[in-house]
Each structure stands twice: as C-alpha cells, then as structure tokens.
C-alpha cells in the first residue's frame, strides 16, 4: 500500500530523478569517521527539536510556575524524565559534537579557500548552539540556573562601552527576574531555532555545492 501511494504521487509529480540526484550523491573515497561529527551534530539537533516540542507542551515561562512545571513534567508524566533528560544531555552532547566538528575542519584545513564562507556560517551556528545552551540553562529556574545567568550577564556587561546596555537588554532590566525568564524563553524557542535553521540550510547547501574538502 505504501509503495502504491508512492507510485501515485510519483505519477503526478515525477520527483524520483530529483530525489535520486539529492540522495544518491556519491561520497568521495577519502571520507573517514572524523567526518561524521557534523552529521552527528545535526542528529542531536533533531533530538533537541523533538524533545523541545514536547517540553513546550508542559513548560511555563513564569517565575511562579517554571520550576514546578518542569518538576511536575519530570515526575508525573510517563516518559517525562526521559524526554527532559534527552533534551538536557542532548544539549551538552551537541556542544561537544559541534566542537569536535570544528576541530576536525580546523585540523584538515577544510576552512581554506574556497570554503571560507562556510567556516563563517559555521561560526554563526556555533554561536547559536552556545546561545541555546545559555538561554536554555535558565529555564528550569532553580538556584544554579539563576546564578549562572547572573554570572553570564555580568560577563556581557564587562564589554566595553555598550556592555551594560547589552546586559540590561538581555535581562529586561537591571536585575534577573520575570522578564529575563520570558526573554530567554522567547530567544530559546523562537529566535534561535529560526536563525540556526537558516544557517544550517546555508551550511549544508554550501557543502553540496563545494563538495567535501580533500585531505591534506
């Protein structure tokens, strides 16, 4: 039945040659396991998307309820602890993998001409991942989250000239509170996902266009 449905769609749209061109692209012979880190980062991203959507069904970004809603989700919803911990550990895994990916590209010298643009997009993606980590860390609204965010925003405020303003902008005022939580939540679930999706699209398209760099 599945095959017949596919045939029905194929008869109307004729997508098979396009799909074959995209999916059956030959991989060069010099690929090693070291080349997997980028794909693994993308895989952890997908895990974060799925678990993040489920968390968004239960999470409330207000100081009154943030911690309770996370604790309740983890203790009272079947598989809640698995879903939240996949998101929590997946976040750490993503940072580690994206770093290994960057290290591989650096060691192979794959950032050199003509791939400088893709390196730059990659740096934006790295900043997105770190931004996800920083904003997501506050959301459970416990002591660790609160003080880590204080420290992080104080680091921002040491930036010359505009530092204090930037920190206040992110904080939504002079001290960490309800607006900070809401801002971090909005950045975490709306701003960064859009940004990182656009960046990944560019990143992957450029890899396709330019091919994988030859080893040294």
């Amino acid at each position, binding site marked *: 039945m599945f095959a017949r449905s596919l045939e029905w769609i194929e008869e109307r749209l004729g997508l098979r040659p396009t799909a074959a061109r995209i999916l059956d692209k030959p991989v060069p012979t010099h690929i090693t396991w070291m080349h997997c880190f980028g794909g693994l980062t993308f895989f952890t991203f997908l895990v974060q998307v799925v678990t993040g959507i489920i968390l968004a069904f239960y999470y*409330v970004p207000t100081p009154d309820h943030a911690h309770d809603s996370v*604790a309740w989700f983890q203790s009272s919803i079947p598989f809640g602890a698995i*879903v939240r911990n996949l998101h929590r550990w997946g976040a750490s895994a993503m940072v580690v993998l994206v770093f290994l990916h960057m290290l591989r590209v650096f060691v192979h010298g794959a950032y050199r001409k003509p791939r400088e643009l893709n390196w730059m997009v990659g740096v934006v993606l790295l900043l997105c991942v770190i931004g996800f980590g920083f904003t997501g860390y506050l959301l459970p609204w416990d002591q660790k989250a609160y003080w880590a965010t204080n420290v992080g925003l104080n680091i921002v405020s040491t930036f010359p000239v505009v530092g204090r303003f930037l920190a206040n902008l992110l904080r939504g005022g002079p001290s960490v509170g309800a607006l900070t939580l809401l801002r971090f939540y909005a950045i975490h679930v709306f701003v960064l996902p859009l940004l990182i999706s656009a960046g990944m699209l560019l990143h992957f398209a450029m890899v396709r266009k330019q091919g994988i760099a030859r080893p040294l």
Partner: protein
Amino acid sequence: MVRRFVEKVVFRRRKPAQPTLPGMRLPREPLWARTRRQPSLPGMRPPPRLRLVGEPVSRRGFLSGALAWVTAAIAAALGIPAAAAAVAPALRKKREEWSPIGRPGHPGPGEPDLAIVGKPLLTSFRTLVQDAYLKAEPQNVPVYVINWGDGRFSVYDVRCTHLGCPVSWDEKTQKFYSPCHGGVFDIQGRVLAGPPPRPLDRYEWKLENGVLYAGKLYRVNEKLQRVTD
C-alpha cells in the same frame, strides 16, 4: 611525504588476481584493499555469488536495508517516549471520590434545604481539583438536586448535553432551559426540545449519616439507563 603516504595507502588499487596453487600464499594486503569493489562498466554482469537462501542480496541493498532498520529503531526510541509524554494527560481518570453536597433538613448558610421534595434545587459541592503543576484547589461544582421524597435523590450536572451551557429550572413551566441553543429538559432530565443528544448527565449519590454525597459523573440514554461508568 604525506602525499606519497596517501597515494600509497589510501588510493592503492586492487592487485590483479593471481593464479594460485594449493598451499601457495599470496602476500598480505590491507583489509580494505581486498574488500574494495571492482570497477564495473555499464552492461557488465556481476560475478556469480554464493547462493544461501532466495535471491542474493546486493551490498547496496543490504546496507540500505540495515540503514532503514537502524533509522526506524532510532525514530522509535525517540518518538515513542515523546508521543507518550504528549498523549498521557488525555488518558487521565475522572474524579473518583465522594464529595458532600449537604444535610437534608439542616442547610448551611446560603444553601437550599435538600429536604424539600419534588423540586430541583440549585446547589454545589466542593471538590479538590489537581490542575497539573498548580496547587490542588477546592472548586465548586454546581448541581441540581431533586429529593423525590421516597429516599431517592437525583443529582444532575447543570451543563446542557449539547455544548455545555448551564441549564436553569423554570418553576412556572416545570422545565429546564438551556440559555444557548434552545435545549429543553423535563424534571427527569429527558430532552423535550432542541439539539441536546441525550438527557442531562448525573452524579452517583449516597446518603450517609444524614449527609448527601456526590460521586462519579455518568451519562444516561433516553430510557434513563446508565451508559457510562
């Protein structure tokens, strides 16, 4: 030097097969050199393979099949917990405790006397509602109570069975009217007019030590027989 190493090891071509004699040993090759696929030209037939069961599986077929199964396993490992966590609240059970409505003959302040016979009385009971992560809070549930005078009671849910608007009892015409879409019910809760699909829902009741309690909410059919637990 690196380039020479790469050319020597990574791009080593497979050596042509040599004729062998029993006991003769060929010089060792790295594993990947031996397993590398032979180049093929269009129209070239694959070499005959060892036949085990059924059609021989091509390497490409085996790998894409294995990839599909691994992908399915990962999708299940991620998808099942996610879906279960999202669906779980839909499967929660209904309230199961008994909640006191009042003492017939001894009404509390502002409450109707449930000893009055044959007349629907609008009152309410309190129940603890646990709303997700919020603190459990008492909530007033409005009900119509009828004391039939022979020791039997009826406890109707006030919500119209059409779309949930609260019905009200009209003493003059002796009917329940819904304010929204013209639903009308008689004193037994049966539908007299309008769109409601079934009689008024009702609560289990019991009289214990002079106190009337409300239990689980259930539905009835046109003959007022219970159809849900």
